[in-house]
């Protein structure tokens, strides 16, 4: 059992599955191969979804000093099974005044886009389910379709809470799509390719055998990673930015009128979107499937990818357990006044890094560019109002 064999074990398994088709026509082999890829991705991520749905509640419970689910199975680990059965046997309610077709199609579209986006991420060495030259563009093209699905859910339900939630969701998704895409631009620029495989390949190699050449180790890369992560939080409607489904204000946003399995589909799509954004963040900034130090290269590549992915997912849960919900206007101001100028700055900073020879000088220069703009912006945007001392009219 050599390390290289373990690394490619899934590819070997696929070859073995395809071997009975040796004489078949080309298109048949292609279709079967795609089907194997699809079932692989779906299997892995459905398992991850089941695991994260219980782990999230466990971790949140730990952070809030309570137990979390612990009744079903050992340590409550069979909770997803119980949840799934509950969702499946619930009544599927469709409002009488709903736009039936649109109401029905919305959860399908939401799930389909989330799953499609997972298809272009390289999970390990030679392990990209769907290799395409413009992979990053594909990811964003598919991701932008989610907005339409959310709108369909809100409109089709014919309910004011649904519509309000959908409007909020679309507004913040459109606003944060800009920083999301602009922060990937420096990476695409430096690598000179839109394909995720090329981006991961460009992050291989180590300085002194311990310092990986991931983009997050450069100043512009680190800043872009933070901006990308925040935009990802918004795009997947996670907690500090969960106004679209803030349950104390508008019930459950665009999902209000969905029940049973359709609701479960929305829930799944949300988590799949989270996986996809985190997977792309790992690919773009955290070196994809490369190991952190050269000495650990014998461990299979997909292990590193999923380790990084889990770390990011933990941060998602951590943030959810820590931060309160922001207001709508705060979210919008933050997007247009801070995120967007910073994202543009990062493009300049990456160019500076590149033309200073990608060494220490470039590192310092690009840090300087980012720092100047950051402090200028924070000075400009300082809107802390000086409140007059409060007067009490009746309480004195």
């Amino acid at each position: 059992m050599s390390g290289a064999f373990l690394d490619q074990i899934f590819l070997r398994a696929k070859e073995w599955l395809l071997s009975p088709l040796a004489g078949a026509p080309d298109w048949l082999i292609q279709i079967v191969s795609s089907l194997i890829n699809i079932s692989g991705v779906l299997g892995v991520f459905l398992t991850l979804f089941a695991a994260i749905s219980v782990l999230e509640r466990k971790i949140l419970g730990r952070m809030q000093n309570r137990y979390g689910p612990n009744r079903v199975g050992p340590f409550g680990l069979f909770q997803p099974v119980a949840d799934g059965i509950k969702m499946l046997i619930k009544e599927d309610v469709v409002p009488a005044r709903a736009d039936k077709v649109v109401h029905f199609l919305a959860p399908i579209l939401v799930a389909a886009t989330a799953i499609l986006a997972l298809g272009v991420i390289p999970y390990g060495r030679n392990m990209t389910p769907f290799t395409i030259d413009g992979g990053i563009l594909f990811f964003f093209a598919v991701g932008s379709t989610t907005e339409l699905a959310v709108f369909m859910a809100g409109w089709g339900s014919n309910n004011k809470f649904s519509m309000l939630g959908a409007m909020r969701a679309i507004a913040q998704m459109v606003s944060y799509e800009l920083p999301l895409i602009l922060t990937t631009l420096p990476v695409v620029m430096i690598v000179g390719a839109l394909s995720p495989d090329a981006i991961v390949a460009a992050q291989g190699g180590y300085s002194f055998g311990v310092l990986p050449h991931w983009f997050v180790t450069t100043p512009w890369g680190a800043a872009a990673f933070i901006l990308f992560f925040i935009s990802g939080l918004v795009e997947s409607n996670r907690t500090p930015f969960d106004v679209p489904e803030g349950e104390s204000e508008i019930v459950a946003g665009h999902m209000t009128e969905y029940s049973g399995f359709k609701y479960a589909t929305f829930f799944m799509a949300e988590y799949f979107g989270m996986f996809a954004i985190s997977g792309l963040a790992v690919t773009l900034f955290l070196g994809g499937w490369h190991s952190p130090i050269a000495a650990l290269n014998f461990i299979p590549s997909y292990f590193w990818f999923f380790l990084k992915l889990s770390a990011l997912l933990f941060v998602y849960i951590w943030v959810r357990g820590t931060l309160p919900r922001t207001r709508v206007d705060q979210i919008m101001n933050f997007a247009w006044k801070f995120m967007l100028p910073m994202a543009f700055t990062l493009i300049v900073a990456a160019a500076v890094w590149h033309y200073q020879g990608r060494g220490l000088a470039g590192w310092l220069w690009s840090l300087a560019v980012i720092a100047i703009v950051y402090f200028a912006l924070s000075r400009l945007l300082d809107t802390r109002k000086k409140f007059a001392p409060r007067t009490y009219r009746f309480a004195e």
Partner: protein
Amino acid sequence: MNSVAFLVIAIITLSGALAAAALPKLIHAALSLVIVFVGVAAYFFLLGAEFVGLVQVFVYIGAVAVLIVFTILLTRRELTGDRGINWGGAIVALAVFGGLLWTILKTKSLAIRAPQIEPLTVKRIGEVLMTNYVWPLQCVGLVLTAALIGALILVMEEKREER
């Protein structure tokens, strides 16, 4: 490029287009328009121009379709008040289609099959875009900026009057 894919996409695209043109409810028409965009993007993929297909999905579905549904939301008062089809328009459209069809079928040099090409990479598009087509690119950037500002001003001015 195979015929089955061509036929399937043609049926989906054209029925989507008919639905977009003829459905009484505006929101259904807008969503059928999305089907047409997906169908055209699929044609681009079939023709080997993957990049254009992706741009098509990205711009049309991510931006234009969302803009259209937002506008429908903001002008919600009369969603169905548009039942009757103006038959004059239908006759003109049919005449145009007949003329185009006749021309296409008459021209013998169009009955050709696709030659072999090497796949069009994103890199190649980028190189051409940055060498031969720099000026059109700059102009498009200018037009987009002007459109952005223009749209903003158009929507904002009326608001001030309302107050």
